[in-house]
């Protein structure tokens, strides 16, 4: 018998076969794939509802082959809360950028996490407002130039970048919070594990789960995709250390 040719890496079923609107080299695409693969692997596609943010990923509902809601800027956690509370049997995730989640949506994310809402947040930290053309985000690094801090972010004027994983980990309600990156194959593998863990915990109805993903924005960082990867590696990780900030612990006697 001849040795069969086998496809060992392919587009996940949950990711529609369409060309995205993302810029060349933008790692939003990688993160999409990891989420889609996870839904495939856990068999959750048919009972999932995603929540799209306002940001570059506003159109992500066109890419995931699941039901979707498109939220007002920053309010995805509130939509997810409302939805999941009415349908605890479904799988709900929000996909949010740093402007969306860490700026305008701060109140909603802190409270959803603190209530222990049983959905998953995929938080894309690219240190900038991508969609509106590169303004300062709460996560913009000190000294980083954007269109609204043309002289570089001055921490005396606008404070230090906000570290969402650390901040939410300070809440007492159980949850799973990890920061990952997707700029190298090894990081992508770790990111996949974290995302899969988050959805698994959700499936098992355990706790609120958030994966912060460091992501690139070559367009607004003003560099090539390759340079963007290096910039992320050299600058972002220093400020946003990778790792698990809060792990779910099974309550005793359960």
């Amino acid at each position, binding site marked *: 018998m001849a040795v069969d040719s086998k496809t060992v890496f392919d587009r996940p079923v949950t990711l529609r076969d369409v060309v995205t*609107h*993302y*810029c*060349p080299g933008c790692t939003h695409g990688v993160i999409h794939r990891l989420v889609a693969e996870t839904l495939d692997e856990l068999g959750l596609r048919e009972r999932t509802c995603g929540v799209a943010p306002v940001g570059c990923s506003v159109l992500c509902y066109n890419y995931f082959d699941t039901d979707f809601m498109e939220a007002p800027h920053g309010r995805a956690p509130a939509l997810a809360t409302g939805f999941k509370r009415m349908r605890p049997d479904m799988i709900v995730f929000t996909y949010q950028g740093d402007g969306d989640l860490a700026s305008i949506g701060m109140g909603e994310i802190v409270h959803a996490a603190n209530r222990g809402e049983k959905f998953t947040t995929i938080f894309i930290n690219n240190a900038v407002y991508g969609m509106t053309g590169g303004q300062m985000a709460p996560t913009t690094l000190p000294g980083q130039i954007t269109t609204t801090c043309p002289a570089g972010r001055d921490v005396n004027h606008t404070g230090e970048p906000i570290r969402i994983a650390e901040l939410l980990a300070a809440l007492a309600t159980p949850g799973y919070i990890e920061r990952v990156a997707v700029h190298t194959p090894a990081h992508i593998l770790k990111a996949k594990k974290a995302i899969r863990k988050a959805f698994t915990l959700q499936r098992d109805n355990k706790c609120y789960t958030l994966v912060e993903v460091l992501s690139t924005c070559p*367009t607004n960082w003003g560099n090539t995709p390759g340079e963007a990867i290096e910039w992320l590696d050299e600058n972002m990780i220093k400020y946003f250390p990778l790792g698990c900030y809060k792990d779910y612990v099974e309550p005793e006697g359960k």
Partner: protein
Amino acid sequence: MMHQYEVTFAGFGGQGIMTAGQLLAYAGIEEDKQVAWIPSYGPEMRGGTAYCTVVISDIPIGSPIISNPQCACVFNRPSFDKFTPLVKAGGLAIVNSSLIDVTTDRTDIDEILVPANEIAMKAGNAKAANVAVLGAFIGATGIVSFDTIKRVIKEKMARKKSVLEINYHALDEGRKLALKTLGKKARG
């Protein structure tokens, strides 16, 4: 008696479309005309088509919505397909023949083929393709004078001498080509 002239510049983002329109608009102001520069800021997919329309007029400009400009300067194929059919009868299409390998089949408009990318390369900088087309446009229409557009290029775009020279060169090449195509005599 010319009251109002409308021209649309269209191409990929990065081809200097917006700048070309702005230079023309500045020149209009210099010559004390009424001008409006209207960009597309719609939901472009990145890498999609960008365009702007410039209106130059002797009287205050009414509608900024120009469905049918008198001229379309198109820099790539999608723009050619979209805008050439919209040109008013009796109008003009200026086509960047470096990237567009077709010509219009409309018989009611003039067409000028400008190998803008090549002209720009030859002039010394690939980025000057927009100015080459601008040169052809001004050459063909005389909407503003070359003196004015040169002054504007100098003030707004190319303060460095070397860059300026390149642009002047591209401008002139465009102009000459236009005149040749239309069989006009070169002015200024």
